[in-house]
Structure formats: C-alpha cells, structure tokens
C-alpha cells in the first residue's frame, strides 16, 4: 500500500482554482518531485497536506489513515513534516533549541518534572541533546548549535529547517524548494544529504524544486502541476522529456 494517497484534491481562493483534482500516490521510502511553473499550486499542495489550508474537496490518506481536514498539529503527529518556501525558523532561539522543539513529541516529560527537575527531566533532556546533536551532525551544523538561528547564513538556515522537520520523526518529509539560494556546489551537496536522509531515516520525501539538476539527480518520480491541475506524472527522466512539460515549464 502506498504511504501517501492524494485523491482529487481541490482548493480555491475566491474565484481562483489554485489546485484542482490533484491525485498522486507516494510509496514508502520514495523520493518524489513536485514541479511546475510559478503559481501552479505546488506550495498550496504542501499547505493542504499539512493542514494549513483545508481542502474544498478530495482526500488525503497517510498510511491508510485519512488526514484531510485535520489540524497541522495532528497531521504532524501522524507523520508529515515540512520545510517552508520562505525560511521560518524560531529565530530568537538557538540552533540546538530549534531542533529540540522539533523533538517535542518524540522525547517527553511533564511540565511538572521540568519545574522540579525530577529524574525524568535529566534523563530525557540528555536524550534530547544527544538526538538533536546527532541530527545536526548530518548537516554539519553541530558546531553552531549554540548560535542564534537567525545569525546563520541563508544556506545553513535552510538546512536547519530540514533538521528540525526531521526531528519530528516523520514518515513523509516535504521540502519546499530546498535548494533555493544555493550555488551549484551547495546544491550538489544537498542532493547527497537528501538521499542520505531518505536512506538513514527510511522515510519518503516529497520535494518542490525548480533546480532540474536536483530533481533529475535524485527524484525517482515527479508530478508536474500546471495551473492547479496535474499535467503529468511518472518516472523522472520520462517526465522531463515530455514535450508538454518542456513547453509549460522547462523551456529549451
């Protein structure tokens, strides 16, 4: 059974049909790309998947469980985490704390033990620190763990956002233009990291990207959105050769 099943997803804003009858399914451990012209509705699909917007119609199933219409919190708990197109970090918190917030539902202790510093506090905090630092290490961020997150350069902020999302232990990770603002070298590095994450954490990844090197380099499947509806989907190499995709999106 597919991990994520989207069927006939629709949403409109005022008169604008931002997403229409969008359906895809993503397998366990798959790297899936979502591409399409600007304003095609890609980010909107992410917002629908994570509960930021409520779909006008359609269904979303994760692991056999219907999640459409649920709150962002519940959806995250059921296993979807994301990054944002415009970076959104907890900017007045340290890098480490950003990740620890991500671990919020993974490693728990009550407010009461927190206040009175009961043994569970010490045990769980230690665990949390270890986990957070381990995650940061994946992106070479562990040395900056004490910096305020807003003082990181752009590229590293992007990475931190991914770490934070990973910390919530998702089954499906959504990345919205992870390579934006990165130069080719950094993008290449990011590609490796994304693959590494998929293998190491054994999760599926759905990503939006305009950098075709990244998409063709790592995505097994892609779906193409155009004006809110699906143009095509399938094997990456084939899709990218599709003349309709070339005219609508890639250009020569």
């Amino acid at each position, binding site marked *: 059974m597919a991990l994520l099943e989207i069927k006939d997803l629709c949403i409109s804003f005022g008169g604008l049909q931002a997403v229409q009858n969008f359906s895809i399914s993503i397998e366990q451990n798959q790297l899936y790309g979502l591409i399409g012209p600007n304003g095609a509705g890609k980010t909107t699909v992410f917002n629908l998947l994570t509960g930021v917007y409520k779909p006008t119609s359609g269904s979303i199933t994760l692991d056999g469980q219907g999640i459409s219409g649920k709150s962002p*919190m519940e959806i*995250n708990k059921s296993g979807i985490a994301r990054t944002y197109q415009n970076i*959104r970090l907890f900017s007045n*918190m340290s890098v480490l704390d950003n990740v620890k917030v991500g671990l919020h539902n993974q490693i728990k*202790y009550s407010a009461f033990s927190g*206040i009175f510093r009961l043994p569970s506090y010490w045990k769980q905090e230690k665990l*949390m620190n270890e986990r957070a630092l381990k995650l940061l290490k994946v992106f070479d961020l562990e040395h900056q763990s004490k910096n305020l997150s807003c003082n990181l350069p752009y590229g590293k902020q992007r990475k931190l956002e991914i770490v934070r999302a990973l910390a*919530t232990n998702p089954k499906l990770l959504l990345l919205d233009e992870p390579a934006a603002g990165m130069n080719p070298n950094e993008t290449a590095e990011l590609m490796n990291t994304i693959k590494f994450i998929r293998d190491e954490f054994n999760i599926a990844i759905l990503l939006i990207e305009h950098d075709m090197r990244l998409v063709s380099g790592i995505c097994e499947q892609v779906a193409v959105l155009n004006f809110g509806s699906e143009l095509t989907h399938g094997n990456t190499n084939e899709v990218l050769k599709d003349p309709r995709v070339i005219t609508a999106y890639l250009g020569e």
Partner: protein
Amino acid sequence: MRKLFLKSIKSSTRNKFSTYIMVIAFFSIAAILVEAGILGSLFKGLLVPMCYYIILAVSLNLTVGILGELSLGHAGFMCVGAYVGGVFSILTKDIITSALIRFPLALVVGGLAAGLFGILIGIPILRLKGDYLAIVTLAFGEIIKKLVQNIYIIKDVTGFHFSFATSIDTSTIDSESKQVILNGPMSISGIPKNANIVIGVILVLITLFVIMNLVDSRSGRAFMAIRDNRIVAEGIGINITKYKLIVFSFSAFFAGVAGSLFAHFSTVDPTKFDYNLSILILVFVVLGGIGNIRGSVIAAVILYALPELLRSFQNYRMLIYAIVLIVMMILNNNEKFLRFKERFTFKRLFAKKHAKEDA
C-alpha cells in the same frame, strides 16, 4: 557531545543560581542596613512591595516575554488573588489560628483562584493575537475590577448575606455578630497583616524557581516556539492551546500569589487594580528586558523605588520619573550605549578571564 550538554546545563544553572543569589544578597543586605539604621523606614517599607512587584513582573514576563503575547490585564489577576486570599484569611481567622499555617494557605488559595481565572480567560481568547489579545486582557482586568467593586458580603450568626451592586440592608443583620467581609467600593478590611520580608523573599525565590525552570524545559521551548512562529510551532506538532493555557494559568497564579501577599501587607482598594497598574508591571518587564527574567527582578526593584527616591524633587517628582522612563527606554535601544554598557558587565569581565584561561 556529552561535554557540550553538560556545559549548556551548567551555564543555564549558573545563570539561575546567580539570580537566586542576587535576590538573597540584595534583600539580606537591605535588611541588615535597615536594622543597623543606615537605611530608614522608607526603605524598610519598600522591601515587601518590592517582593510582590518582582513576582508580578516575573510572572508577566512569562506571558509577554516568553510566550510573546501582550497582556494588559495582569492587575486583574492580582486583584483576584488579593480578594480571594484576603477573604480566606478573614474567614479562617478563627478556625486556623496559627498565621504560620493560615497565611501560606491564603497565598495558595489566592494564587489558585487567579490561576483558575487565567484559564477561564485564556480559553475564549486563544484565537486572538497581538493587540487584540492585549485589549481583551485589558478588558478582562477592568471587568474584574468593576465586579469586585460591587460585591457585598456580610457574615453574622445566621450565615452569609450576599448582595451585588447594592449594599446590604443592615436592618436584617444581627449587629452583635456582624462581620463585614466585602463592602463594595469600601472593599475588605481586617485582613491580618501577616506579610513580612522573609515570606516575601521566599515567595520571590519560589516564583523564580518555578518560572525559570519551566522556561528552561521542554514546555518553555514550546512557549518560545509559539512566540517565534506560531504556524511552524503548530506544524511541528506543538499543542498551541495547551501551552498557551499553561502560560496563562501560571502567570495568573503567581499574580494571584502576589495579590494575596499584597492584601496581607497593604490596604485593598479595588480602584488600585486598574490598567495603570498592569501597565506599570509591563514597564518593569519591558525595561528589564523582554524575556529576561533576571532583568524583570532588577527593573521591578529599581523602578518601584525610583519615584520614592525622587521625593526630594517635590512637584517635579513624577515629571522626572517620566523623563527617566523615556530616556532609559531610548538608551536601552541605543546600540552605542549598549556596547558601552557591555564593556562594564561582569559577564564580559568573566568572559575575558575565561578566554585567557582557554588560551
């Protein structure tokens, strides 16, 4: 990795302990100087108020600084604490004769009542943000003030007599056993004056302990995450409603404790608990540094004492206070001044020493 963890624990613990020590040192030195007659009655009289203002400022900082929601109704919670705590003491004066037991109970009862109000108020306004939330808290504070101004309770042998908005017809009341508990705008009188500096300082330390530990824990990070970016916090699986309510109730609880302490020290006058008082506490929080707990402590002490120390300026006293407030605010946000200030902090001196050691 382990080292890093220990280091971070150490630094936050050190930070907390230095705050506790600062509080203890300040009040002990002050008490000694007062005993020795070096500091006069005025200073002596300021110590307990300083305690409840510290508690108020620290608890408000939890809402404003850590959760990032502006509240202009803190005085309302203080009011609930003062009334409930005060009435509790009056009613139990004959039952619990030992002040040592009764007074702490009155503090807790006052705090719990206020905490309950915090939750009651918190629930409907969770949807609101920013200035809208601020205005609603202001409105709640004013409503509480208006309500307590209109409650009349008299106790006599036949039991309790309640009235709202009009005073109780005393002709039906047994004048022998009559005990006026709440008397509308005349409010409460006869609360035993149990508050003293030792209890005050203990309460300050308890407040600091609870709030600083809370902030420096899993829940505290959730508060700050909500403050920094609500949408993301939600998307990361944080239960916004739950954590906002935790903050509102803790913040209100301690404001209530402060109110109860106040009621057992000074005179309860409902008109005191208006938005001006809430704003005064907010001034402490902002000047002490938003989110900076120790700063709130320092600011509460200095700013509460300031108008008293300016008394020799006579008519110009409040004018000067206003100017000092503005100037402090401007300087606090002036980069040059901050850099200048930094050069003289202990932290910096410390850091230098450490740097040398490391090298």
